[in-house]
């Protein structure tokens, strides 16, 4: 990241050519993006942890021991909590719940968002107005307090319930973006042509519109997963979710409620936060990758700042740099 100078590179015609035939080429381009690769790698690490977590955890996260609030040591790499439980095991085992809730909520919210957004953008008129207003209402209402009061009034708020509540409140952003894009796609020539050919609406939507929305749907999905992960952790942290399932927020809940801060037991709450930050960074980086892929203006040139300085190039809008490197031998 440090060598990446995030300069602007405009690749002409990339954004305008949204035809499906270029999809393969574009996908390869996405995988060449260093930010996206870094993000996917970190995400992959957590995904593996989520699958094998319970087997590789050194202890049972609920196992009480006499080593109360011990700093990291050879036997407890990340120390122990107030009941002598192993913090590392809690984190490793808790990964699964974090990812599952994030993924389920992401899938569900994306599904609602796609249905609402594409429908609104494609049908237009009163249907569009109604669905857009609905999406905007959900955007403006503060989601976290809404989730808190729903989860707070549910008699049993398990992981899956929470995921669905998050999805029910967090779909609106994706729907809004998708609606705008569908609207602009609908006016493109190839959609008009498909309509003129008398193709059925559902076929136009499935074969012509959805493939061109892939990047935006992916970005919306990643964004919702981020939101869901943060929401779930926050809900656990403030103690709304049952504490029998471990996740990173649960660890923070115990830390906060047993004066980990006042005791200086940093190993209890810092690693959990870093895990959240790591996963959040991964998702953010993947979204940056998608952003740059959709909006070429944001793409970095992949040039090292040092090399630019050596050639005395200062890329600016309005003042094209001049270097006399080419031949000037013509009459």
């Amino acid at each position: 990241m440090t060598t990446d100078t995030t300069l602007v590179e405009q690749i002409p015609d990339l954004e305008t050519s949204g035809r499906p035939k270029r999809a393969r080429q574009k996908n390869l381009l996405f995988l060449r993006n260093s930010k996206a690769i870094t993000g996917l790698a970190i995400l992959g690490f957590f995904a593996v942890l989520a699958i094998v977590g319970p087997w590789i955890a050194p202890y049972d996260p609920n196992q009480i021991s006499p080593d109360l609030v011990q700093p990291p040591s050879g036997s407890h790499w990340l120390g122990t909590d107030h009941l002598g439980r192993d913090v590392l095991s809690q984190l490793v085992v808790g990964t699964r719940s974090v990812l599952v809730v994030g993924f389920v909520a992401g899938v569900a919210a994306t599904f609602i968002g796609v249905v609402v957004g594409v429908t609104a953008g494609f049908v237009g008129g009163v249907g569009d107005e109604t669905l857009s207003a609905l999406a905007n209402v959900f955007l403006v209402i503060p989601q976290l307090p809404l989730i808190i009061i729903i989860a707070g009034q549910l008699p049993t708020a398990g992981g899956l319930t929470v995921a669905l509540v998050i999805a029910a409140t967090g779909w609106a952003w994706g729907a809004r973006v998708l609606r705008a894009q569908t609207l602009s796609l609908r006016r493109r020539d190839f959609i008009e042509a498909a309509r003129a050919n008398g193709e059925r609406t559902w076929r136009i939507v499935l074969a012509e519109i959805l493939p061109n929305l892939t990047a935006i749907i992916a970005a919306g999905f990643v964004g919702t997963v981020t939101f869901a992960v943060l929401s779930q952790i926050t809900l656990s942290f403030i103690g709304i979710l049952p504490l029998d399932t471990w996740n990173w927020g649960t660890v923070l809940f115990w830390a906060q409620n047993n004066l980990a801060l006042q005791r200086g037991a940093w190993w209890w709450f810092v690693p959990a936060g870093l895990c959240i930050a790591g996963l959040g960074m991964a998702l953010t980086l993947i979204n940056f990758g998608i952003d740059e892929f959709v909006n070429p203006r944001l793409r970095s040139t992949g040039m090292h700042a040092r090399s630019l300085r050596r050639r005395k190039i200062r890329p600016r809008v309005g003042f094209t740099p001049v270097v006399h490197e080419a031949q000037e031998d013509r009459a």
Partner: protein
Amino acid sequence: MKFLTRRLAFYVVTAWAAVTINFLIPRMMPGDPVTALMGRMQGRIDSSAENSIRVLFGLDQDTNVWQQYVEYWRLLFQGDLGLSFTFFPTPVADIVRQSLPWTVGLVGIATIIAFVLGTGLGMAIGWRRGTWADALLPITTFFSAVPYFWLGLIAITVFSVTLGWFPSSGSYDRGLIPGWSWEFVGSVIYYGFLPALTVVLASVAGWILGMRNMMVTVSSEDYVTVAHAKGLPGRKVMFGYAARNAILPQISSFALSLGFIVGGTLIMEMVFSYQGIGYTLYQAVSTQDYPLMQGCFLVITLSVLAANIVADFVYAALDPRTRQEA
């Protein structure tokens, strides 16, 4: 004015939707936690207060949903949000009235500082690409990825537990009498500094990234090139042409992400035990005080709506296209 009329209509609809959601949630929930609580409170609630709780939570089995709904609105217009269970028999409206100014002060000021600061920094980074300022981007990415409350925990550890510079909880020195004295105001600022700093640190990153991306996008618009071609001074091109246009979507996204930010910053109040509406909501949730929960949500939503309306007015003032007569 058509733009503002449309927006106002939208806010009326949203407010209606928020109230209706608030009405529906307890009625859709399986089980009946409120009846159980009412049972425990038996004999301590006077009959009119019991009636309003019944209306608010749909315990009247003998009336249909529509009648309940009408009655619910009637109570709301009277400012009756029921009685809090936790702070029995204080009305929810009173509790909310006491805590709201603290939230507006802390979250409001901190959010505006974060917005101004982040937009300014993003403007500079987006305009001068390829300089040291780009090194800020990875840092801002990190800050935008961590949950707000965790930053609060770290801030408490570093600045109050380890360094002892700031108090770790509360909103003013309990030994002082609230009033407009220098001592009291100073104490409020002293207690509010750390939470405010955390809110700013946590939310500034989003504004930096958003504004930076908008600056980059707007910088390659034709009218910016025209401004350069006209030989305008660099500052004028940057502020009058690039930033002046880049800030418009930034304000829209301010309005839209307000709900998200407020949600995050409310949790910050919980971490700092700051006596605002977020902390009140936290107390309500942990003691299962349903009337208070509902009241907090309603007030939070209406405040966010109010902030949205302000943002819309600013937007309309800045973008002549919204002022177009139909």
